[in-house]
């Protein structure tokens, strides 16, 4: 369109586009000045690719670099996170979680109540797990490189549920226990980072532990990962009083075939 009407339309279009962008910006982006959530770092595809490769190499060289494992998960897991989120949406409890966005942190846990719960309940066993392995839920890295606010929450939830999964499956935080949990998670979630960890983790195990993994533990983990309900869809914060056995039954998880923690507990509790 030419002439005065064309110029008018053109300026109207740009000003409308500008206005709507400003409004949208007010609603979402400007809250964290261009980022989608407080810990968000926007990255290009090239940067994500380099991050994925670099963090993979760094995590392989030094498996204790949890931040590198986290970055690998974030940069490679976009499609899988979408599938996970859809699974959560289709589950009533899962959609409640997506709405309410609970976080598992020391500040949100009621430690005195939880330690007063009877043995065998989720809350008591979880606290025991935290104490025995000397970890806290606050040491989990924040999600940085996921470019969608909801998916970032799903990723964060996955990380926070990881410790609870240790409790549910009865696995300690030594290498064998971690690999078993990774196999379970790989079968459940399908995150590329879990699959990579599951494939490469056994390389660092001793022969005897490798045998244990291959014969009983690994198959159990894979089998249960496939048949269990989505572990991210459980509102753990409301189920501290539930016993582990009941929870396992509800989630369709069998008891671990080899009790890795039992030997430590037996030797200390049997008097």
């Amino acid at each position: 369109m030419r002439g005065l009407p064309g110029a008018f339309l053109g300026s109207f279009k740009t000003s409308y586009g500008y206005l709507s962008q400003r409004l949208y910006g007010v609603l979402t982006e400007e809250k964290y000045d261009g980022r989608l959530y407080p810990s968000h770092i926007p990255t290009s595809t090239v940067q994500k690719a380099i991050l994925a490769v670099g963090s993979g190499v760094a995590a392989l060289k030094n498996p204790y670099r949890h931040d590198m494992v986290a970055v690998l998960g974030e940069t490679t897991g976009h499609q899988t996170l979408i599938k996970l989120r859809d699974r959560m949406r289709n589950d009533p409890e899962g959609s409640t979680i997506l709405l309410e966005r609970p976080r598992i942190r020391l500040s949100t846990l009621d430690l005195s109540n939880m330690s007063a719960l009877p043995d065998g309940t989720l809350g008591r066993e979880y606290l025991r797990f935290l104490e025995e392995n000397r970890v806290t839920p606050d040491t989990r890295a924040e999600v940085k490189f996921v470019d969608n606010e909801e998916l970032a929450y799903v990723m964060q939830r996955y990380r926070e549920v990881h410790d609870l999964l240790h409790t549910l499956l009865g696995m300690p935080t030594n290498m064998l226990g971690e690999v078993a949990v990774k196999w379970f998670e790989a079968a459940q979630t399908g995150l590329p980072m879990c699959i990579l960890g599951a494939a490469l983790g056994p390389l660092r195990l001793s022969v005897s532990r490798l045998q244990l993994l291959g014969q009983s533990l690994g198959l159990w983990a894979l089998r249960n990962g496939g048949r269990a309900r989505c572990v991210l869809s459980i509102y753990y914060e409301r189920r501290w009083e539930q016993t582990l056995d009941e929870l396992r039954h509800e989630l369709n998880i069998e008891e671990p075939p080899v009790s890795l923690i039992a030997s430590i507990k037996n030797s200390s509790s049997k008097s």
Partner: protein
Amino acid sequence: MAAPIRAFVLRVLSDSTRNIHHVLRCRSKYLCRRAAITARRGYSDSTEGRSTHFGFQTVPEEEKAEKVYKVFESVAKKYDVMNDAMSLGIHRLWKDTLLHIMNPQPGLRLLDTAGGTGDISFRFLEYTRSMYDRQQRLRAKSQQTPSWKDIAGHYVSDEEGPPQSRAVVCDINKEMLKVGKQRAEDAGITTGLSWVAGDAEELPFDDDQFDMYTIAFGIRNVTHIEQALQEAFRVLKPGGRFMCLEFSKVTNPLLARLYDAYSFQMIPVLGEVIAGDWKSYQYLVESIRKFPDQEIFKEMIEDAGFFRVQYFNLTGGIVAIHSGFKL
């Protein structure tokens, strides 16, 4: 009628273009370039507005020093590894070039400000020691057939030992100094080196103390650059030399594009993977963009009272060595 309006718009723009981010978004490129230059010139002597830049963010002045401290506290342990990774080892050549241009004679006192892990000081001591050895060798060569008087003279007088060159490493950040001290121990350097915690804007030294003052990759982190330059002028002896090695503006447009792409795409990623710290290295590349270019910095050095100010561009202008004399 148009002129005062334009002047007014320019002034408004220059106030809002402290942050170069806004400059890039501006529609009118010509106004922006003019405003950016005035902003860059003006930021150093604005009396109102107690805010300054921290990378591309705008922060209150009091906060900048603290934020910079935190950045270097967290990167201290991996500082040297990251330098090698980011510059592909070229930073060693830059620092060697600084020493070659400086060409220090044995027996001089060096103040290495923002010296952190001690790279410049170690090189300084090594350079003066090897220079002293070379001078001794030349002296010996020229005295191939000494008279009996000379031989007797040698036995009596000599060898108070080599004139001791001394380097003082001054840094505001104690973590960086710790890493530097450890490096000195590992390298076996015991004499001629001291470590002082101090602020470049307020040096804990008397006037007229040092023969050389260097600040390598540190001055862009200082909140008030003119103050640091004035302090440098104060602590130098008359005849002393000021040298600054710093990232600067690349002149070649193609190289500038490549350099920008590398800086913004690769360096924070490297920071995340090697040091686990994206934000510090994002600050690093942004602070390079905010630093004045070669000519403007040269003028700032001249304003502080230095004479014969010149600069040398290295690697196409990625870094520049500025040098000036206190006369």
